[in-house]
């Protein structure tokens, strides 16, 4: 059966714009073409970036590098302390920002009744997303270090990171909350659930996708941040325990990368760290998705 027969048989209303069918076919072809093309561009970029980093980085990523700390005397580079520092910072800042961000989003979407307040908070969150990390770094230094008297270290760094990632978490969570049909909420409330119970059992599980997306973007920001950490978490390349690192200058992987690349011109180490960061991001993404799904099921 050919297409022509299919279309000839099915034409009853003839009051159509003459060229419309042609235009419409064209529209579809063009749209699809554009979708493919842009995706191809994106995929090309992805492959290039990822490939470039892996090719230049993996060959320099050696076991000793991963498991030792740098020594100036022996002139070796080891990034084990930085791996730990990065993990500490992810841990601490997510522990603070995730509940705060989800809480704020839930407040905005489920509880708030005062429009003006909502607008204010949303506006604040949006403003935060646009502030350059260097400004966060300066403010973080001023507030956490000069005002609160913390020392440069993981704690001050993580607190600064909280400011940076909070809006991302708020916005993405809020978006997914918005997309949940009211039918579900009404169904739950009509059964006599309290508001919080409804949020916990029906709303948050359905919003899990957005929360995971937000967390992943947030982790990405944490992992990729350098400017804001230079002034707050510091530069230290030595290994510390979690507790000690809180108040001791501790470079994250990205800060270390920045130092090696920009002060010493050690491109190789830089790419090695970048490749490692990518592997870490990948791992964390899988973890976030996995736990997200798990929570959603519950």
């Amino acid at each position: 059966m050919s297409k022509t027969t299919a279309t000839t048989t099915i034409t009853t209303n003839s009051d159509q714009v003459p060229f419309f069918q042609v235009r419409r076919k064209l529209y579809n072809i063009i749209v699809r073409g554009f979708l493919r093309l842009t995706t191809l561009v994106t995929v090309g970029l992805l492959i290039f970036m990822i490939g470039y980093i892996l090719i230049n980085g993996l060959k320099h990523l050696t076991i000793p590098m991963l498991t030792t700390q740098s020594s100036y005397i022996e002139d070796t580079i080891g990034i084990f302390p930085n791996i730990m520092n990065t993990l500490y910072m992810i841990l601490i800042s997510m522990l603070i920002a995730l509940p705060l961000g989800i809480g704020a989003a839930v407040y905005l979407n489920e509880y708030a009744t005062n429009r003006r307040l909502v607008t204010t908070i949303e506006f604040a969150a949006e403003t935060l997303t646009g502030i350059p990390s260097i400004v966060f770094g300066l403010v973080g230094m001023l507030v956490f270090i000069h005002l609160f008297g913390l020392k440069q270290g993981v704690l001050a760094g993580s607190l600064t990171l909280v400011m940076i990632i909070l809006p991302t978490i708020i916005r993405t969570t809020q978006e997914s909350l918005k997309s949940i049909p009211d039918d579900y909420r009404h169904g739950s409330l009509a059964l006599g659930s309290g508001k919080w119970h409804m949020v916990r059992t029906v709303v948050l599980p359905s919003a899990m996708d957005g929360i995971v997306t937000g967390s992943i973007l947030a982790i990405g920001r944490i992992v990729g941040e350098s400017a804001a950490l230079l002034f707050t978490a510091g530069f230290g390349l030595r290994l510390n325990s979690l507790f000690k690192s809180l108040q001791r200058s501790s470079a994250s992987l990205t800060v270390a990368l920045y130092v090696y690349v920009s002060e010493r011109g050690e491109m190789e180490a830089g790419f090695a760290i970048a490749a490692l960061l990518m592997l870490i991001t990948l791992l964390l993404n899988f973890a976030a998705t996995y736990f997200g799904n798990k929570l959603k099921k519950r």
Partner: protein
Amino acid sequence: MIINVQKLNLWYADNHALKDISMDVPRNQITALIGPSGCGKSTFLKTLNRMQDLNPIVRIEGEVWYNGNNIYDPKMDVTDLRKHIGMVFQKANPFPMSIYDNIAYGPRTHGIRARAKLDAIVEKALKDAAIWDEVKDRLRKPALSLSGGQQQRLCIARALAVEPDILLMDEATSALDPISTGRIEELVTQLKKKYTVIMVTHNMQQAVRISDQCAFFLLGELIEYSDTSTLFSTPTDKRTEDYITGRFG
């Protein structure tokens, strides 16, 4: 009188959707609400368990008394109120969870955790809603994969599982075939020994078959409210007569 409505007015923004409704609903009886589409039946039903609170553009005046308490009293515990006044919505709205979890949702909310007890509640509710046979082998499957009518019965079962005092049903049988409808009607008739039922229906036969009282709404007004038999045999208002004889509009 379990419910007592006094001079209730409701606006959706500037659309005056309920006008001066006053109405008493007797305990342990079935009260039917009838009237043409868009006349305010769902709107009225939702004022009885304060579901209208959720719509920010709604403004309400007047009083609704439940068991001697004004439910619009700011001190009212809305959660508790809704637990006692259950509701089945016009559009079936199962949660995106398994069939089992949908039914167990209410009991769990109210603190029942024991597996055996939950199992028993779920089974009873599904049986009462005449859907047990169709789903007993797929309780763990998502509720959204059910057919339209199955979803509606699921929602009835979900409301029953909480054992409310009053059950508000918004066209709960409209998507059902005669057999399921018959079963639900039977259920409702039995329920009235323990519960009070207020139901919206488009089906006059159904109203005649099972309701004790009947209220006729038109353009947001309560035109006539009396014994079902009286209303259908000797309506006092011309408009009621026109509507029930199908001569209306």
